[in-house]
């Protein structure tokens, strides 16, 4: 038994291809039979991934979902930032540069609005639940942007580790919500053109959530949403510990 697990860990990436293939095969089946194709197989696969990650987390108390299970370490490579970003970049082939250029200014506006509104709403929630110091409020507001902006801001401002943990958790909740929610809400918010995908990416930010959500909605929209979303974390890390923190300090 021991040597099989060692073998699987050694050949982790290949084993991850196999397991992901099995997850997707079953999800296609569920999509066809249980939902009559109404919920796309890709959306169900992504949801199954999250469910597996949740139970693996309960079992191992680790941070890396099923990659913490013995034999499944290859998922860390396949689902890591390198492959994710490489695959996102590849989707740009065939995307229209003209549309990106034309929608650029509104994309930038949506980026600023996305960061500032997330920050403000996040900070208001923290305040209404009894947190009153500017550093903690700023950190949680930053966590409402993405799960990278939260800890980066919190570390820069010297927030306590439990506040930073909450900010990471808020960012992860956001990412999961966007992943699951995007295909469901897309028809109601007019998310069907490249332009709307660019605005959506700017407002939501979370690259992983936006990219996964758009993939389940319409793969053609992925490059446009990812294009703006990729600037969000950088902008958040720029604004939260500086301008937005000064505003918070002036108020509290």
């Amino acid at each position, binding site marked *: 038994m021991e040597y099989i697990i060692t073998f699987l860990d050694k050949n982790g990436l290949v084993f991850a291809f196999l397991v992901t293939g099995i997850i997707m095969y079953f999800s296609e089946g569920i999509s066809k039979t249980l939902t009559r194709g109404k919920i796309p197989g890709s959306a169900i696969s992504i949801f199954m991934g999250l469910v597996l990650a949740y139970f693996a987390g309960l079992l191992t108390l680790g941070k890396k979902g099923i990659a913490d299970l013995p034999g499944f370490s290859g998922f860390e490579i396949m689902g890591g930032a390198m492959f994710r970003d490489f695959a996102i970049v590849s989707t740009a082939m065939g995307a229209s540069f003209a549309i990106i250029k034309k929608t650029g200014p509104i994309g930038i506006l949506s980026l600023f609005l996305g960061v500032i509104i997330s920050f403000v*709403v996040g900070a208001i929630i923290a305040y209404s639940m009894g947190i009153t110091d500017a550093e903690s409020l700023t950190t949680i507001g930053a966590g409402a942007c993405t799960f990278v902006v939260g800890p980066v801001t919190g570390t820069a401002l010297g927030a306590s580790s439990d506040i930073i943990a909450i900010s990471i958790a808020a960012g992860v*909740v956001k990412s999961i919500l966007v992943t699951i929610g995007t295909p469901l809400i897309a028809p109601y918010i007019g998310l069907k053109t490249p332009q709307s995908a660019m605005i959506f990416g700017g407002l939501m930010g979370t690259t992983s959530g936006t990219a996964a959500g758009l993939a389940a909605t319409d793969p053609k929209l992925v490059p446009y949403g990812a294009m703006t979303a990729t600037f969000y974390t950088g902008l958040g890390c720029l604004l939260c510990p500086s301008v937005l923190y000064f505003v918070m300090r002036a108020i509290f």
Partner: protein
Amino acid sequence: MLLRGVALLAACFVAGQILGETLGRLLGIQANVGGVGFAMLFLILSQNELEKRGLFHLEMGEGVTFWSKMYIPIIVAMSSVQNVRVAFSNGLLALLAGILPVLACLALMPLLSKLAPKE
């Protein structure tokens, strides 16, 4: 030829990500600023340029399309390594701070869409 496509994609990826990292350093923040976005722009522009000169072979394109087809499986793997447990075990504050800002931003979608230029 197939590998030239993969290599082109890799070149754009490396150039874009390094630009994003450098931009982050210059701005004094610990984050990559738009690396993926720059890489995508490089890929679009270099594809256009190569096509203009007749140097873009069909098989080269397949080297890139393979990865864009691998995209969804990679996203499935990505969601299965998320720290989902922590998202649900950190209490009401984390849940609300993750959910309500998303709803507030979504409410702006229709307004911004109206401002967007039409095709």
